[in-house]
């Protein structure tokens, strides 16, 4: 009798709701996957480190002798803050190809079909890629000290400079993630992100902007990398460097922070819109 009543009872029409992970746990999973991929591909780590070292050595010992950094300032003290700051672009650009691959091989489709906030996927990716950039900044700073760079400011200023680099790195990751999502293929993403190195070379990172031809100077002065490099250089270089710059340190810090906020606002929304697009 009991069995009969049971079978006659209407079956539940909807499964008990499975909620899915919330925002931060989801981001953490996605981030962990990106970090694991990096850590388990030692070729990439070694290659990135060797590339940074070669780049630094070439500028320090080959081009450096021909570049006049300014009154009494050794080129190594001019170069290293610029070098470290621009690592956020050199090391960060791998995210573009990585994201494009995730689109191509269907991993993002799988994640988008799961009951998690879609923004969490991008947040996880952005945080993990920023973490990888931080690792690159550590390596780059160590290389900088190895080729003779010395801080001429307090530890606090040095840490502030490093912190700014992390923040800039986070901002540029959104540019690379947006490139990865928009480009369609990993190869196109790589090509487009390499174009971003123009921002590195047409900036104050490796040479003083004053040494550029007149028509190029305004371009170099009004793009985000120059105030970022100048802020880091002023903080890490102390009074000697600050004396060479036309504006006080706080000016560069603020200008760079405005750029940072603008980049995040534009490119994170662009990436989010593209990622949640349903077509």
């Amino acid at each position, binding site marked *: 009798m009991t069995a009969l009543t049971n079978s006659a009872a209407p079956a539940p029409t909807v499964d008990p709701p499975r909620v899915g992970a919330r925002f931060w746990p989801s981001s953490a*999973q996605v981030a962990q996957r990106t970090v694991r991929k990096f850590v388990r591909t030692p070729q990439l780590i070694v290659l990135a480190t060797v590339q940074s070292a070669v780049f630094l050595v070439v500028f320090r010992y080959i081009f450096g002798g021909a570049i006049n950094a300014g009154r009494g300032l050794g080129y190594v003290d001019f170069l290293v803050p610029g070098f470290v700051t621009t690592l956020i672009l050199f090391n960060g650009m791998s995210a573009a190809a990585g994201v494009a691959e995730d689109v191509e*091989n269907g991993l993002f*489709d799988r994640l988008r079909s*799961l009951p998690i906030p879609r923004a969490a996927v991008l947040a996880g990716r952005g945080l993990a890629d920023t973490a990888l950039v931080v690792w690159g900044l550590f390596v780059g700073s160590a290389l900088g000290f190895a080729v003779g760079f010395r801080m001429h400011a307090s530890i606090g200023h040095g840490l502030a400079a490093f912190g700014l680099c992390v923040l800039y790195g986070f901002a540029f990751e959104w540019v690379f993630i947006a490139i990865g999502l928009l480009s369609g293929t990993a190869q196109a993403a790589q090509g487009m992100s390499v174009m971003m190195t123009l921002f590195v070379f047409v900036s104050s990172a490796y040479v003083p902007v004053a040494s550029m031809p007149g028509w190029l100077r305004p371009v170099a002065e009004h793009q985000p990398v120059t105030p970022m490099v100048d802020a880091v250089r002023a903080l890490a270089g102390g009074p000697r460097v600050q004396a060479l710059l036309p504006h006080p340190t706080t000016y560069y810090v603020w200008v760079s922070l405005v750029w940072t906020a603008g980049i995040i606002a534009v490119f994170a929304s662009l990436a989010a819109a593209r990622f949640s697009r*349903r077509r």
Partner: protein
Amino acid sequence: MTSHSPAASGRRTTTEADPTTAPPVLRASGLVKHYGNTRALDGLNLVLRPGRVVALLGPNGAGKTTFVRAVATLLRPDAGALEVAGVDALRRPAQVRQIIGLAGQFAAVEPAMTGRENLVMVGRLFGLKGSRAKAAAASVLQRMGLTEDADRLVRGYSGGLRRRLDLGASLVGTPRLLLLDEPTTGLDPGSRIRLWDAIRQLVADGTDVLLTTQYLDEADQLAADIVIIDHGRVVAAGTPAELKALGGDDVIEVHVRDPLALGEVAAVLATVGGEPRTDPATRRAWTAVSDGTRRLMEAMRALDRTGVPIDDIALRHPTLDEVFLTLTGHRADDASVRKEQQS
């Protein structure tokens, strides 16, 4: 609605007699999706009852993947209605994502993680806590026969293993409806059969499956119901047997010794059945007939009079391939023919 064949409506009547009150696993009506000038979905209507594996069969570009992506809430149709287990997929996509599993055309797993890590990640994303996610992963690994390879990096997996892991990943959330988009495309025959076995096992365990394929044998092997779609519409639907019946009752097939004689044989076949077809490469001529046995005798007598040397003559049921050809005017796996016909 007009696109439904009599066979389809026939089947629906029988399943509607089913006493279960559960809503359909899937109900699509008038789905339309444009990409530029292309109508990927052109008023697609489809109702899937629970408890049956359905294969969506169609050539490349028929709209199969577009439809699956719509069900998986990865794209939004331009018009029409779509319900998954009674949930409006257009208004409440987040709720639909809780009840579906998706395995796409690519193995969407992370090569730099082990099989187990991949599945635990998906489990965690479904909101399972650490130990429950691990248990869910272990159970799926066992069901997919992947326990031995569980702790190797996916990087070292063969294509077949990856696909099985991918299928496993779509199961971690114990989906109500599993969407498999061309699950075996690009696999070698051995891996294909193992994946089929895995899918059959799922079905036996009670998962509703919607799979797309361009292989007729795959649909025939796995599905209880087949829905043929072309140009974004349902052309026909029914069980494999019902669909085969649509292609004519029977087929007389003649295997000649000399391909040059095919014309003469075709002329004879034309007198007993419908328009004959020939394939010189395999030296075959065949035609659909009704009242097969009698027509076969007639054909044999007529062929005997011509004196054409014949290797084999047979009466058989039509293949799904022939049904497909009859219904759509082109072969299931022949995209080039399709393009010619469109232009």
